[in-house]
């Protein structure tokens, strides 16, 4: 199953290496990982999208992450009300006459053309990963020259429905 996990970490050198190393050592499949600073200077946030077999594996993953000295908090937000976004840059083969056609395709995705050259067009799109997948599929027949994706970053919405329990893994017994 695909899970979205966020980890708040101390922004120290080596922390990213420690985390990716541990995921690899324990044979977890990472689909994407994104890291960036947060509102607090010394703290970064990672968003991991992983593919795990079952709940036991998932629990191992969060516990192993939590065990790292520089990891402050690990949360599995997959089943929560979340805002999740990814950004992709897509360079498409395009002769001038196709430009309008492409414009028509990307518009519903609220994507923008950010670079134009004689024989290519670069498109920027943000959104949920599924939306980005969909746009890529539509553009594929035109010939994608280059594709770069940031991986997902996500956090909880300001308001959470009261019904579900947040599966937050901490050092303390649940």
């Amino acid at each position: 199953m695909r899970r979205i996990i966020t980890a708040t970490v101390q922004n120290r050198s080596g922390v990213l290496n420690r985390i990716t190393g541990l995921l690899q050592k324990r044979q977890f499949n990472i689909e994407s990982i994104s890291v960036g600073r947060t509102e607090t200077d010394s703290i970064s946030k990672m968003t991991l999208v992983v593919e795990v077999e079952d709940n036991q594996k998932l629990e191992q993953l969060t516990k192993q992450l939590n065990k790292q000295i520089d990891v402050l908090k690990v949360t599995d937000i997959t089943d929560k009300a979340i805002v999740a976004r990814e950004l992709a840059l897509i360079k498409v083969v395009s002769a001038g006459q196709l430009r309008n056609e492409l414009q028509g395709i990307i518009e519903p995705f609220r994507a923008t053309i950010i670079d134009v050259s004689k024989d290519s067009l670069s498109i920027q799109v943000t959104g949920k990963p599924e939306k980005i997948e969909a746009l890529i599929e539509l553009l594929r027949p035109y010939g994608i020259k280059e594709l770069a994706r940031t991986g997902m970053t996500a956090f909880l919405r300001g308001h959470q429905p009261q019904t579900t329990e947040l599966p937050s893994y901490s050092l303390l017994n649940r």
Partner: protein
Amino acid sequence: MKVQTKPGTAPRIETKTGADLLVESLIKEKVDILFGYPGGAVLPIYDAIYKARESFTHILTRHEQGAIHAAEGYARVSGKPGVVIATSGPGATNLVTGIADAMIDSLPLVIFTGQVARGVIGTDAFQEADVMGITTPITKHNYQVQHVSDLPRIVKEAFHIASTGRPGPVVVDIPKDISANPCKDEYEDDFHLPGYQPNIKPNPLQLKKLANVLETAEKPVILAGAGVMFGSASEELRTFAEKHSLPVATTLLGLGSFPGGHPLALGMAGMHGTFTANRALYECDLLINIGARFDDRLTGNLQHFAPSATVAHIDIDPAEIGKNVTTHIPVVSDSKAALQALSFHAESSAEHDEWLQHLSGYQQENPLWYKNPVKEMVPQWVIEAVHKITNGNAIVTTDVGQHQMWAAQYYAFEEPDRWVTSGGLGTMGFGFPAAIGAQLAKPEETVIAFVGDGGFQMTLQELSVLQERRLPVKVIIVNNGALGMVRQWQETFYEERYSESLLQIQPDFVKLADSYGIRGYRVDNQEDFLDLLPEVFSYNGPVVLDCRVLQQENVYPMIAPGKGLHQMIGVKP
């Protein structure tokens, strides 16, 4: 008041270097022994150590691997972190085996490695190795010092992290310019580690749940691991087991956590454990694991592990709970705190005399066995004879292989923290240097290193340290002229094709000892051995004893790989 200075003698401002700060921090941590080996990148540190030589003993091993295994032995019996220093590049990479060994067996170590100067890190400078990259997966934590003023804080954190919670190795990589240059900034060593909260009190709800199950369990059993000893909880374990008449099986590393001769002791469980201990784990309806990590050499095939049991697992490391075995009652806690709280929650238990009788029937019917040839020596007999003459009181270290398993089986440990062996990593070359560290930690005690003829040759250069320090370690080579454990597997699983496992050529171990100025003996029969033992153990100096034992002995009983706890072979002669 004005300071008067004599003309021509300007007041000298003593500025401390990084190396001075390091030494100061070590003194603050009450370190009294360092194990290490010098080299270019740690010259400033060794200079500071020289100046502070009144404060520490530095043990110069003859290989960095010897230093780190000695530090592990020291840590295991003293309960204090072992401290290691090595130079950059090859010095640091020579430590890798020991770091991995300490990580998997949870031994507290603080390791200082030299590094090339900050300005050239990343340029493939002379003796540069990516120590952070190499040690990240095998350390509890690691640091590379970037500012000299951080050094005191980092050292303090390193000792704290290594020795609290689930212990483990911490590496501090120190670039040469950091240790060489004066510290001009202010520094302090206060630290705050918000992501690290090692002291966890047991959850009373889970303990109540455990107490409830105990009230109805008909076939309860305790599995005691090294976590009992890390938590200094042997007393509490004994009280708890006796109060509820709970039989106790131990893991390889848990030997000594419960007295081996106790009526409730089932002995060691696992691949070469006793029939009874393994049957108890197989048949039980309640399994209380205290500080063991359900290693595969213990559980055998997981499908057949405690198939009808409610599993309770007390462990300080939450990640160990539920990792290999589905756990019904998780208790994240230090073993001592959990057992103390349990004594309060668990008042009564179901009567289970029948179960105890059943197990003692197993014990009588299927004891450990070997065939004693009367004249020649077999390894099991050697261990038993040594056990006898030392009254089971020695501190015993082992190397890895058949002799290790026989020592575990036949040197019935009564007391905690007297058994030093490489369990998780199974590191050949561990046993002898570990004995050096153990002897330094406990100078008054008898320390025995049971080593194989193969493994001893991996680190025997440390004989120099025995001679130099006149450490009275008794090295007993269980010499079967073979990489015995490999030979056994080739006999059993590869139709006796002994591929590269017979050691036809060996040094003359007696002459070798002699060349180091150490007493050496060779014996090949029981009579001479028994005659010699009093001399060996009454002599207050190092001894190397080459015991020629029969080669064909195999370690039994055994759970073959892939088999379950109930499928032991070699249970009876």
